[in-house]
């Protein structure tokens, strides 16, 4: 029971790749200056050069120019800079209406709520049973007062990938800005700003075996943004604060290390767990679209049992996963994503998210399915629900 650990919560955080750490090391011990000091001494010049290089690498990964990419402390800050920055820039001049989807990450959703309290009007777009927004509904929701649409690239819990090319086209057509949170899709799903019309993109390193505490924001040239965290003039005067150069270097290295072969392997693990669980464990429902989903995400509801009980049992058997159950959350609220796709509390209560990463193998999948089968069976034994033979799988 206390042997091997199998970590399957790579959407929450990933194990750092040693090669990333090696790339970062010199910027802790040798070139520890900051870029702001470039005109004072050589450590500053080294820092500036390093920062310029990785900024270039990361903007390239999005098909952008290097002055269109700023570093931040992570995806939460990036989304805050984007949404509040646009609101500050256009709130008085153009309008006070913002459109987001109901299943955004809290970084976006709570930015919207905070602005709402300050007098902005927010439309929270519904999603369908698989988590997709309706493009016509989006078009209809945009008014003359709308300044920004913020719709994620892929969902953090159920992995559903939105059609952001289409969303971007609608936004261009209606002349509103478009921000997308690509925290969970960056590098795994191609996104190139030369082909896809997006104005602001949130990205981060912690989901791709990079360090925590470093993220980025693509800001399309000319996008009106007001800096709201005051301090120095770093990051093209859009984000004040000391540059996290080791983090930025680690971020770029992490991006360099992702490749399509690896993504294919992750997808094979995803498909394997979905196929095995749905066929071998009765009363299970896949959450999110079967195909248009992140290559490394599977989210499944095990009916008649509670998610935290499953995760705790799995943990004792060496597996780390997460759940949308209210019992698991600090707020004691069920996952807003599962509720958003029309699920009831019961569907959220027994939902488990499996997210794969570089250090997982297909054997891990086989092992967890065996363990899960036992755990779910045992928990159903003690559950007052789900023993009657006529209990049907709840509707998808």
């Amino acid at each position, binding site marked *: 029971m206390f042997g091997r650990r199998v970590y399957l919560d790579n959407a929450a955080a990933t194990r750092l790749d040693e090669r990333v750490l090696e790339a970062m090391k010199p910027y802790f011990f040798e070139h520890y200056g900051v870029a702001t000091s470039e005109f004072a001494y050589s450590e500053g010049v080294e820092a500036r050069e390093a920062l310029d290089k990785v900024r270039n690498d990361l903007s390239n990964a999005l098909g952008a120019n290097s002055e269109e990419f700023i570093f931040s402390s992570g995806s939460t800050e990036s989304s805050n800079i984007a949404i509040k920055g646009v609101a500050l820039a256009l709130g008085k001049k153009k309008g006070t209406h913002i459109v987001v989807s109901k299943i955004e990450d809290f970084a976006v959703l709570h930015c919207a709520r905070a602005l709402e309290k300050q007098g902005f009007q927010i439309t929270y777009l519904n999603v369908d049973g698989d988590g997709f927004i309706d493009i016509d509904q989006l078009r209809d929701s945009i008014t003359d007062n709308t300044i920004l649409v913020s719709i994620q690239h892929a969902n953090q819990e159920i992995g559903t990938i939105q059609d952001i090319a289409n969303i971007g086209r609608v936004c261009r057509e209606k002349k509103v800005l478009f921000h997308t949170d690509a925290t969970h899709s960056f590098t795994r799903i191609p996104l190139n700003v030369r082909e896809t019309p997006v104005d602001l993109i949130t990205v981060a390193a912690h989901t791709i075996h990079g360090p925590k505490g470093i993220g980025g924001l693509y800001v399309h040239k000319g996008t009106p943004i007001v800096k709201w965290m005051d301090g120095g003039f770093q990051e093209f005067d859009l984000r004040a604060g000391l540059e996290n150069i080791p983090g930025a270097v680690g971020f770029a290295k992490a991006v360099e290390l992702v490749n399509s072969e690896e993504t294919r392997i992750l997808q094979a693990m995803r498909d394997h767990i979905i196929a095995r669980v749905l066929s071998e464990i009765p009363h299970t429902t896949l959450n999110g679209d079967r195909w248009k989903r992140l290559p490394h995400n599977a989210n499944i509801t095990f009916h008649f049992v*509670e998610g935290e009980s499953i995760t*705790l049992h799995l943990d004792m058997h060496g597996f780390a996963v997460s759940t949308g159950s209210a*019992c698991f959350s600090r707020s004691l609220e*069920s996952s807003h994503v599962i509720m958003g796709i029309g699920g*009831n509390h019961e569907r959220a209560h027994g939902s488990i998210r499996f997210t794969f990463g570089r250090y997982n193998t297909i054997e891990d999948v086989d092992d967890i399915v065996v363990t899960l089968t036992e755990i779910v069976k045992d928990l159903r034994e003690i*559950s*007052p629900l789900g023993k009657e033979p006529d209990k*049907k799988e709840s509707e998808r």
Partner: protein
Amino acid sequence: MKFPYSEKVLEHFRHPHNVGKIENADGKATEGSPACGDMVSVYIKVDPETMTISDVKFESYGCASNIATGSIITEIAKGKTLDEAKKITWKEASEALGGLPKIKAHCSVLAVEGLRSAIQNYEERHGLIKEKEPTTLAVVRRRLKKVMNPLAGLDVVRTNLVRDIQIGDGVIRVEVDLPANHQFASAIKEELTEKLETLWDIREVIVEFVE
């Protein structure tokens, strides 16, 4: 490995005691519902000579603290008189488990309520409720507030799932705003009936589904 629970909680979570149903239980109750999150059913067997709990079992659709509390509270209750068992508190259960995280109080208190309700159920079935209050609309509504609307996560009364209640001649007629073939219809009907049929002056409960 590190866990957010005490050793004792984990032990009862891993190997819960007194799990299952008692066929022909003398008293039974379910607290919570899949909608609000956790749910627990408690069954008791009562020795009528001594008025003690001769056997008690529970079932849980809940998280670790819910399961562990069900396990410990049934251990404590076994062999106790009904009056003693009624007085067992969440605090006692929590202390016996070496402490529960505060945020988990909600999930674990259900097991305590489950036991109390099962005892109440026994007393009602055996005419042991001393003060016989006639069944009024207020009484029915109070009871139905314990039945959760699985679609909303709130009870059936506040969410207006119960459209109408009529009481007369020992019969309660409850109108539910749901198609009869809805996935939750039979579960709701069962729950409503269970909560009301034990009322001393009621001989029939009719649940009707209307769209």
